[in-house]
């Protein structure tokens, strides 16, 4: 939608100043150019090798300790500390499933 973006997008913008701002903002989310962007002169072979060197997976899976947590403890933390369930579970796991320790830790000022 190149054309007359300004008029189309901002029928109410009164001044030239406003129209400029509106037109700029309306173009922020166009993706057209990342499709069309020309590739730089890259060594295709080098790129391929580089890609291979990166390996298959992007994110490294963070090691999570296998800790058993009591569902009742999770519920207690959800209720009393108003945490989300995953966050409560995480907190419990960080304290080896010990609800008392988890709650005490949460009470410490975090600054």
């Amino acid at each position, binding site marked *: 939608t190149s054309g007359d973006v300004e008029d*189309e*997008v901002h029928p*109410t913008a009164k001044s030239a100043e406003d129209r400029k701002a*509106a037109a700029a903002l*309306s173009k922020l989310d166009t993706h057209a150019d990342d499709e069309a962007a020309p590739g*730089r002169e890259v060594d295709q072979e080098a790129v391929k090798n580089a890609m291979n060197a990166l390996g298959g997976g*992007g994110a490294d899976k963070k090691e999570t300790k296998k800790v058993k947590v009591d569902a009742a403890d999770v519920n*207690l933390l959800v209720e*009393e500390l108003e945490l989300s369930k995953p966050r409560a579970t995480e907190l419990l796991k960080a304290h080896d499933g010990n609800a008392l320790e988890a709650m005490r830790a*949460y009470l410490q000022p975090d600054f």
Partner: protein
Amino acid sequence: MPQTLSTREANLFRTVIRNYEDKQYKRGLKAAEQILKKNPKHGDTMSMKALILNAQGKTEEAFALAKEALTIDMKSYICWHVYGILYRTNKNFDEAIKAYKFALKLEPDSHQIQRDLAILQIQMRDYQGYIQSRFTMLKARPHLRQNWTALAIAYHLDGNLQQAENILTTYEKSINTTPPRTDFEHSEALLYKNSIIAEMGEIERALEHLETDCKRSLDRLAVMELRARYLSQLGRNEEAAKAYRALLDRNSEHPDYYKGLVGALGIAADDEAALKSVYDEYAAKYPRSDAAKRLPLDFLTGDAFRTASKAYLTLMFDKGVPSTFANLKHLYSDPFKRDTLPVLAEEYLRECGSVDEGAGSGDSSKGKGAALYFLAQHYNYHMSRDLARAMEFVDKAIELDPKNVDFHMTKARIYKHQNEIGKAAATMDHARSLDTKDRYINSKAAKYQLRNNANEEALATMGLFTRAETVGGPLADLTDMQCIWYLTEDGEAWQRRGNIGLALKRYHTVFNIFDIWQEDQFDFHTFSLRKGQIRAYVDMVRWEDRLREHPFYFRAALDAVNLYLSMYDKPQGGANGVESGRSQLNGEDAAERKKAAKKAKKEAQKAEREAAEKAARQDPNKAGGASQKSKDGEETKKKDDDPNGTKLAATTDPLGDAMKFLGPLLQFSPKNIEGQIAGFEVYIRRGKYLLALRCLRAALALDRNHPKVQEQVDRLQKALGGALDSLAPKLQEVIKSELALVTAV
């Protein structure tokens, strides 16, 4: 089941998509209807229709249709993609991510879906997900540099600096021609890598990289600043001094450069003469530099201070610089300096007195007027306050120059400190009348009117500068333009007037503006990659992460929490704070409040009516319709169904409503004791003793002598005295031991 269309309809379907992309919604709908006439259960078409309805603002209808389409055709990636887009445009990013993931499973090679998913992941700070997405995107298009940079950013934000650097280096190695010097993306990518190396703490390597790879960088200031910093971090003082000198030659008004230079020169902090000579050198070299002359006043003492500040004040008074006091008042923490400056100003005055007044430039804001103005501000300042003398000096200044806006402005401030709020407002308005083309004084006049609870007059004052054509009048313009100070002050004034509805309304509006500011980063996740300005983008992301620590948020949110607390303590029936019969107040008081609330409501209605009338007069064709706020024009502003906050005030769960404001307060400004105190009050009323205790612990850590905090310790003990036994055993145990810690001190 995926359904196939006839050639004719398949063409029509493409038309629908094109129409949607071109924002030709009516045509798009017509084409979709044509397809559906023949194939009433065509999921993809139904989805596209839903998308168009959504764009037209018919959100509910859109969701219903999109869901129906999904039940018909669970295996269509288009249906899932549309479902994701609907969630995304309605700001439910979590659900949107889920839908996109389904779509991507069905159509793993769709660049568009993958890209949309990636944007949502970074918006939600799902770094692991983002890394995965950017990796996939890089694999699909490794020839685009921005895909490499994006993956590096993903690792960087996730804290994996090493990998971020590797990615950038890997790409660099694959370029087989040297990019031209004007290649901004290249220049910036190198500096970005340099910032990562420095962030890893490898300053030596960062410096080397800077001096080789970034030597020709287009961002010269950044290279100069980084080089100076690295050199001084590495203790290479001679070179660092040279580097800071080069920076001072560029900009002699940046105190950090002087600090860097002084540090590199190894001058001891108490060697005043040596320090002073550094600044003197630049004061001589750049006679128009303010910093070179002013900064020595920070460290000079005794006679040296007296001499230097006399010279500085004389220069400032001669020039009539209005910010002279503002630029020096930080020195007042030193009693000697606090007492010396006014003496010097008086001396200056006496010396002026012997010369014929106004003989110089004829500008009475210079010379004598400036000194009087300084003294008025001096005695108005809280560390040296003597309001009677302040008034004396400002009146003398006004006598000298009756039309000086600044003088009257200070007079208004003095009235404010005398608690003469009405006089303060009137005086500020007089100052405004002396220069009606200046919005600054206009804003100040409105602010003082609000302090005087004159919301209607304040709005009229603001209306002198808001844009006349905005539908809804000045308030709508101020809201659109995210004018937080006005909304907050307006809310506070309504609150003082007992109009809970309008007060809450304003605080919620401020809250919503912060939501908008958070969403504002959305487009930049791709835009910045295209522009190649990576360091600025990373800065922005990190700032957005702590957006709500801003005092703008804190003030309005604390106001809201405190108001909700008082609503809980004194339940009020009826709208906008009109007192209910079951109030705990005595009858007379209640009647009084009722009257006040009624009056406030009437005034609010009147103000609204007037604003609407004014708007209608200015633009008879637009009596409530399109808004300028929306980004896309097609998205018309939803009509506010609670303009006076009546519904907000009628809440049955004020504490629950308070939580919306309180959460970010505690999360982002934990070191602000007022927030912790308010948090305790909310939690103890809700029976969340552990969370109340948490706020109390934080407050104690911040200031254990705060009177309110001590009172809260007692209250928590008392409350638990009755309630402890009814709590879960584990809870009891924690509370007992932790409370003992709190009360022991």
